[in-house]
């Protein structure tokens, strides 16, 4: 049997829907982890079933709570709008027009305190599982089911080798690795899933590798 008992019993979550509530919260929480920086405004573009049935399933509260860092089993999700107001966080929901995406998709835009903004698109694919499909216009494929490293680098030889060598030195086994680039010799994206938690020290060391532009660790 290759299905875990804990895929049958679980997730532990806030009701009523694993895709429209728990998945929505996780999606926004992973997005927040990717953004890293403090933000004062976050907007959510709802598409498909998220837009149509979201109100009945608490999708909005779940997304907002996730963006604020709350886990999908946190009972404060229900009253998150009050908490957001107390913290002075502004938020907005709108209906998104998208093409060829999953039925439960959200476009989450974070407006950071340093003036930058980041736009993340992702979907809730059922059973509380999620997939981040786009980061600032770059296609990506992040499920955050295992600890994940997200690296942006200059598309030059040797970067990937240096990263994987460093991970081996740190005792981190690579489970999945995907590299994609905008165009040859320019920017490239690397998503690495590992078998163990990715510590802050590993991130600092990867940042020092030549041609690495940014590094983020997602330990969910």
């Amino acid at each position: 049997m290759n299905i875990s008992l804990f895929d049958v019993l679980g997730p532990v979550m806030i009701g009523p829907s694993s895709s429209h509530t728990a998945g929505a919260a996780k999606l926004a929480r992973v997005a927040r982890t990717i953004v890293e920086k403090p933000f004062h405004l976050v907007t959510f573009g709802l598409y498909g079933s998220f837009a149509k049935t979201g109100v009945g399933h608490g999708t909005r509260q779940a997304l907002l709570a996730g963006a604020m860092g709350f886990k999908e089993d946190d009972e404060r999700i229900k009253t998150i709008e009050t908490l957001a107001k107390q913290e002075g966080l502004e938020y907005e929901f709108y209906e998104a027009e998208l093409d060829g995406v999953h039925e439960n998709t959200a476009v989450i835009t974070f407006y950071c305190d340093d003036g930058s903004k980041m736009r993340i698109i992702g979907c809730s694919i059922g059973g509380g599982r999620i997939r981040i499909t786009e980061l600032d216009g770059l296609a990506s494929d992040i499920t955050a089911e295992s600890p994940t490293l997200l690296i942006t680098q200059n598309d030059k030889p040797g970067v990937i080798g240096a990263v994987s060598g460093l991970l081996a030195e740190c005792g981190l086994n690579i489970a999945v690795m995907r590299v994609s680039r905008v165009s040859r010799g320019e920017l490239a994206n690397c998503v690495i899933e590992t078998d163990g938690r990715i510590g802050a020290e590993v991130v600092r060391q990867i940042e020092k590798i030549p041609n690495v532009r940014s590094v983020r660790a997602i330990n969910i």
Partner: protein
Amino acid sequence: MYNTIEELLERQRRTGTPMHRIILQNEMNLAGITEKEVYTRLKKRYEVMVASAKKALYQPQSMVLGLIEGQASCQQLYAGKQSICGPFLNELMAMALSGSEVNASMGRICAAPTAGSSGILPAVLLSVSKRYGSSEHEILSALLVAAGFGAVITKNATVSGAEGGCQAECGAAAGMAAAAAVTLAGGDGEMVANACGIALMNVMGLVCDPVAGLVQLPCSYRNASGAVNAVLSADLALAGQRTMIPVDQCIDAMYRVGKKLPGELRETALGGIATQPAGKEYAKQLQALTSSKKED
């Protein structure tokens, strides 16, 4: 390795290993974790289950439209009075309703196997373990068996209402809970399998027709009746009744029937009670709420 209930039973017959230990060993190999870790994870989930089965018993939970608000406390109050089914079944139903109410009100639950059917297994575990004075380890071992059966159903059929209707959600949950109940009562492996098969037979073809698309009605009543389905199937099996159609074939039948259900009756709110005049009226009320949210 097993992929069917028959393979589980066959391994049990051949090795003499109790069913819960075969399932446990599989999980340890699969996840690369120790026995203690499996039980720790089970316990964490069980605690969430217990809390959801009790939370709404004395306190109605607020929710959008409020279609099932206060159902659990209503039944719990009645459970103490003269009744047809007696306190055991009425308390069982009250706890299943509580799980549904907590889920609908954005409270914390453990999907088992889904959020919409999450009231069934906790209610059955609590009621049956109370009757037999089971230890915590026995309850967690019964939960292991339930989850093991759920994994087989997930693998060979579906537990998604959108794919197989309510029989796939509340039916699977009842089948899992029936297996757990027989385990708690000390029945043998054949009885555990028969109980699961009977529970699935009892609701073969049950459609998913959520009013206004919400996980409220008829979900809460399907959780209450699913819990009763589980314990009656367990008693039938413990008495020595056999399904005659092996449980794996019941699972396959459930899957095939689910596939044949029209889309209108698979979680789309386009059929069943959802499209009756009263159901449509609630959908209209929800629509009004959605529109007013958009104007915010």
